[in-house]
C-alpha cells in the first residue's frame, strides 16, 4: 500500500461507508491519524474498514478496535519484513 497517494475525508467516508462524524470522533481520540489536514493515505482506508468491521462485528469499543488494528498493522509489517529477508 502506498503512502504517497492521498485521498480526501469525503472520499474516505464513501469508500469505507462511514460518516464524517465517525471519522472526526476517532481523529479527536487519536485512534486515527490524517496524513495532512483533511487528507488520508490509502493505508488509512484499510485501517478505517478494519476498525469499522471490528466495531460492528464484535460490538467493540472504538478504542479496542483501534488497538486490534494497531496489532494487525504491526503483524503485517513484521510479515512483510520476513518476506523480504527470506
Amino acid at each position, binding site marked *: 500500500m*502506498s503512502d504517497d497517494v492521498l485521498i480526501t475525508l*469525503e*472520499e474516505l467516508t464513501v*469508500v469505507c461507508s462511514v460518516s464524517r462524524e465517525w471519522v472526526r470522533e476517532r481523529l479527536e481520540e487519536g485512534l486515527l491519524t490524517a496524513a495532512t489536514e483533511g487528507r488520508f493515505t490509502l493505508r488509512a482506508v484499510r485501517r478505517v474498514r478494519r476498525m469499522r468491521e471490528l466495531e460492528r462485528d*464484535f460490538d467493540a469499543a472504538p478504542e479496542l478496535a483501534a488497538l486490534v488494528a494497531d496489532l494487525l498493522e504491526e503483524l503485517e509489517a513484521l510479515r512483510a519484513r520476513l518476506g523480504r529477508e527470506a
Partner: protein
Amino acid sequence: MEYKDYYGTLGVQREASADEIRKAFRRLARKYHPDVSKEPDAEARMKEVNEAYAVLSDAEKRAAYDQLGQGYRPGEEFRPPPDWDAGFEFSHRDFQGGDFSDFFAELFGRMGAQAHGRDHYAKVLLDVEDAFTGPTRQVALRVPKADAHGRVALETRTLNVRIPVGVREGQLIRLAGQGAAAGGKPGDLLLEVHFRPHGRFRVDGRDLHVDLPVAPWEAALGAVVPVALPAGELKVRIPAGAQGGRVLRVRGKGIPADPPGDLLLAIRVVLPSAEDEKARALYEQMARDLAFDPRAGS
C-alpha cells in the same frame, strides 16, 4: 438463483434466539476474519456469514426470510413469488449494493435504494499489466436500480474507464458525474483499484516482484537473461555465484509512477532433470569430482 440457507451458514437452528444468532456470528467472524484466518476460503466464507447475519440479526428481514423460505433446501433453484414482500415494511436502509449475493438482492433489493446525488463507490479489478500500459478498460458495475414499484434490482452498467499509467493497489479513480443522479447534479463515481492475482507478478506498493528461474550454471557463472515484463522484455545480469532465494533489485523498473518503483527478482535455481542421460552423466561427474557439501556449516 440458488436458495441460501442462512441458518445453516451460521450453524444455528431455525428457532435460535437473537442472542444465539449473535454469538454464532461472532464465533464465525473470529474464525473467518480475513486478517487472522488460516482457512483458505476465509474471505468467501466471511461474506456468506455477513450476509446471513445481515438477514437473521434483523427481525423484519428474518421474518420475511422465514416466511418465504419454507420448503426450500439449500442450493435449490429459487423463485420468489411476485410481490412476495408486500406487507413487509422494511425500516432499515443498510444494504450495501453489490456486496451480497443475487439471492439477497432479489429478496431485500427494495432496501437497496441508496441516498441520491451522492458519490458512489465500486471496487474494480485490473490486471497488473494495466498499471504499465494505462489502457482504457470496460468496467461492468452492478448498480441497484429502482423500478416503478420502488423495487430494486441489480442492473449491469458498463463504463469505459481510462486507467492511468502507474495506478496503484487501493488507488481511487474518480469519474465525475457518474454517481447517482439527484434530480440536479449527479455525484461522482469512485473506483477503487485492485489487482487480480497474477501467476508471475506480485505488486507491493510501487514495486513489482517476479520469480526468476535460472539454470545452475547461470547462477554459478553469472549470465545475462531475458525477463518478460508487462512493459516488454528486459535483459537482466545475474551476478556470478548467485544462490536461489537471492533477490535482485532493478531500480526504476517497477510500476511506472513518479518516482517509479523497483523490480525485485527472486532467483530460483531450476535443475535439469537427471532422467536425461547426458545430464545424469554430468551430475555423476560432479558428485565424483567436486568436494561439495551443501550442508557444511549448517
